[in-house]
């Protein structure tokens, strides 16, 4: 198992190198001179040139990239063109907010979607199934930007239960987490339902029933256990997506997450900040995928056995 984890960690290196290469070059290929943006609207051409020299923008792009990567190997993700702050420190200052929102929204999604998915699968083709699927369709199709505003109007402005924006403790987490979580829940519900439908018809389910196991045990022990792998995959993917930023929800709720950080700095052509933040996000994504793979082993002894053989 440890060998497998080490191997996966080593495999992250080329993935991160490729990501950094793509991001760095695409940021530099995009039009818009960072020196002009940093120097400001009233700067003279000489000042813009001074900024360009200070930022090292006169070097060929390959040299800039190599210098950047040299810094990265030493653990230095560079300094933001705009804020003049250390990119790593800035990223880390935003990470807790993103982790909070990500885990809370995935938790809400899981709590809503897995029971609902099972329920709709067990009651396939009934009105309960239709109602559950309408909910899922609603969740998938509803822009979370709009849902966020509606939740703010209802729970913040009218009922006064939660703050409408900002990050100040548990209360302020509820509305953004519900907004993001409901979007995620829709997909997980559909996956749970279809995965459960696949296993519900299997012979071992019939055998379990024939052996006199309760319906609850049949569904949760024999059914869900075998249906979990695709569900975990989807949850992992969703978690990766949320970790790398929920720009719309973060904007509506003024949540100081990574998505907003990256979005804001892309428009300012802040190459070090964008590249650094995306590299860190890709590391996070790789780690989440690794954790998902490890979690597979907990639920499926066959996969665990493979790891042990390795």
């Amino acid at each position, binding site marked *: 198992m440890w060998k497998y984890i080490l191997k996966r960690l080593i495999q992250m290196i080329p993935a991160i190198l490729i990501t950094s290469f793509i991001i760095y070059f695409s940021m530099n290929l995009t039009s818009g001179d960072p020196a002009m943006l940093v120097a400001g609207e*009233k700067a003279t051409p000489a000042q813009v040139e001074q900024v360009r020299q200070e930022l090292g923008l006169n070097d060929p792009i390959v040299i800039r990239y190599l210098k950047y990567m040299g810094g990265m190997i030493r653990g230095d993700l560079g300094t933001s063109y705009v804020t003049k702050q250390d990119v790593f420190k*800035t990223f880390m200052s935003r990470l807790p907010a993103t982790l909070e929102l990500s885990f809370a929204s995935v938790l809400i999604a*899981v709590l809503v979607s897995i029971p609902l998915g099972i329920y709709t699968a067990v009651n396939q083709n009934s009105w309960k199934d239709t109602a559950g699927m309408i909910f899922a369709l609603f969740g998938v199709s509803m822009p979370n930007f709009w849902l966020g*505003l509606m939740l703010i109007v209802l729970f913040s402005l009218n009922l*006064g239960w939660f703050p*409408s924006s900002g990050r*100040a403790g*548990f209360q302020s987490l509820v509305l953004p987490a519900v907004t993001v979580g409901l979007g995620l829940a829709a997909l997980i519900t559909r996956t749970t339902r279809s995965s459960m439908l696949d296993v519900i018809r299997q012979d071992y389910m019939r055998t379990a029933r024939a052996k006199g196991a309760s319906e609850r045990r049949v569904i949760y022990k024999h059914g869900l256990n075998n249906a979990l792998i695709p569900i975990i995959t989807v949850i992992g993917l969703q978690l990766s997506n949320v970790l790398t930023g929920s720009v719309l929800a973060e904007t509506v709720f*003024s949540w100081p997450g990574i998505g907003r950080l990256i979005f804001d700095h892309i428009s300012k052509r802040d190459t070090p900040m964008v590249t650094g933040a995306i590299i860190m996000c890709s590391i996070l994504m790789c780690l989440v995928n690794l954790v998902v793979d490890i979690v597979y082993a*907990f639920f499926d002894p066959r996969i665990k056995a493979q790891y042990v053989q390795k």
Partner: protein
Amino acid sequence: MKKRYILIGLLILTVLLAGCGAKKAANTNDLNNDGIKDTLVIGAAAEINTLDLLSQNDQINNIVLKTTHETLLYPTNDGKFLPKLAESYEYTDDTTLVLKLNPNVKFHDGTPMTAEDVKFTLELCLNSTASSSMAGLVSVDVIDEYTVQLNLESYNNEFLVNLASVPVSIQSKKAYDSGMDQPYLVGTGPYKFEEWKSGEFVSVVKNENYWDAENAGKADKIIWKPILEASSRVIALQNGEIDVCIDPPINELDSLEKDKNVTVLEKPGTRLFYFAFNVTKEPWDNKTLRQAVASAINRDDVMEVAVFGKGTKQTTILNRGLWGFYDEMEGFPYNPERAKELMAEAGYPDGGITAKLLIANSSPYTNIATVIQANLKAIGIDVVIEEVEDATLKEASVKGEQELYLWRWNEDQKVDWVYGDLFRTGSSYNYQHFSDEHADDLIQKVLVEPDEKKRYDYGVELQEYLVEECPQVPLYIANLVIAYNKNLKGDYLFGGGNHDWSHAYVAMEVK
């Protein structure tokens, strides 16, 4: 069983993370001893990027820094400049400006502000990317502890304005010499920097030892919270989470005005939105054709779609409120018939022109562009709208790659940052690439002519000339719109948006 553990683990992790981030929100309902709400919370429409005076250029950063730092002179709401850190100033000749400093001024760390600090700050500025703020300064001499002499390249009317600009706020030499982290945060202002959490808030607290007791801050603390989504900002105001909502969405003003706890203030702004030509590109090097286009644009419609009519149509190229503003010329008001005549005179009686209009991909440009596209279609010009990001538009315009474009300019202090920056030959912000000897001559005269009457006349002549030459078609000045707690007091609002919140506060409600 394992599933349950994972679920419980996830739950605990979330609560723990939420707990880690939990920070007691400022209790915005507390009142201090003077019956003033202790914390003034301002909902900002933009992210705060940096608080280093000399390496920032966004309005929101300036606004925060106005509470913690002070300038030698202070700009008033009516365009005048009053002594602040400098007690008095005097031009001993055209190129020598002597400033007497107020000996009572102290930095936040308690050290007195002296001539050495002023020299240090101005030299720091000259060597920074903000050196345009001190254009014309050659050197600074310390005469005595509280007197400095500024040696200038040549006389210009606007040098004093530089001394009132936020990047030139006086900084502490001692703070820099001490090697402390972020020495630029030490100022002389009525508030002291407290905390900045990126993306969350910036807070400043009252400077209890402020040198000018009469003008000390009122609220104990001021917090700026970036709430970028305009509707969320409005809800936060109505909810009492913030006291001030900068730039509420224009389409929500009616409902806001009905809220008895909120005041919506509208006043003339200074931000000018305009349509312009790259005059080096054919056929836009044809002045008459440019005038035809100007006559074809319906500014009423433009203003209606852009700001629901909440603005002022404008003919001249100068920002409203600036010294020498003159808008009485006839110009080229909306007149489709005249536009067609001018098209014929320009050599295009049947139109037949196709042109690309470059715009920023945000409001209000997208709305304005649609109206202009329809207006120009009526005189035979097919406009293809190309939406790009601001940065792309700027770069294309500097390189002269664009044909037609929409942009804006906000200036509320220096006229040369309009005339010179936008119309002087070779200026990097002369996106029109307009080059005209007569205009350059007038721009220089307005800058250096010491006789105010003559200077005013030159300014009027220049504005009339530029409107006639028509490298730019001014559209409208958007109103400054701001919504706030009805109990907000204090003089703080500037038409250009560079508000000073140092003396603003929310008074206790009288029951």
